[in-house]
């Protein structure tokens, strides 16, 4: 599974740590870490909660397009 660099960058933009985001969303820090690393595929419910917390849409954070895949391969 691909790394979710969008989530990582959006979180960094708001100056939030993984632990802070996890607390706001109501999950463990390890879960946020696993999502960012691409080790865990969250449910739509959790995706929505993360998007609401970060003030972004699902497309902004979780939509994968071809450009992302190519940039990760490089």
């Amino acid at each position, binding site marked *: 599974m691909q790394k979710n660099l969008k989530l990582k960058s959006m979180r960094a933009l708001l100056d939030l740590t993984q*632990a802070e985001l*996890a*607390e706001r969303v*109501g*999950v*463990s820090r390890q*879960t946020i870490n696993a999502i960012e690393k691409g080790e865990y595929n969250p449910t739509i419910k959790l995706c929505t909660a993360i998007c609401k917390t970060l003030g972004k849409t699902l497309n902004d954070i979780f939509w994968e397009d071809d450009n992302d895949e190519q940039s990760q391969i490089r």
Partner: protein
Amino acid sequence: MMNNHKFDERQLWIRGNIFMHAFIAQVALLLVNAFLVDNGFIWAERFHENLLLLLIPIFICSLELIFRDVYVQTKAQRLITIGIFSIGSIFGIITCMVDYRKGEAFITNDMLTSNGGSLATFLIFFTITVCLIIKTIKDRIASSDE
């Protein structure tokens, strides 16, 4: 860290997988034990044989839960578990040792005695406690590094 006092979806998924491992281990142990008993090899007294057959999968399951960080939800629960398990297991081990010194052996005729079975039971809980303490220390070091 977590203040919702509930496991999140990823943790529940991990716990489900771990419980499945425990179930498979339980079935495997029952089959092995049935095979041994069928061939006339009795390795423990009846009560402790059944108790250990139950406890070994719980032991495997507990270690996996601890090291995958889904054993207990809060730090308070972790401390309570450590407290109860350590006091109980150390007291039990000491009791077994006292009985051993009084002449109750742990193994006779290639078979776990009642005292030996009790010692094995308490050692299982003691090992779970030690693992929980190690994981707690490891987590503290990791959080202080962040």
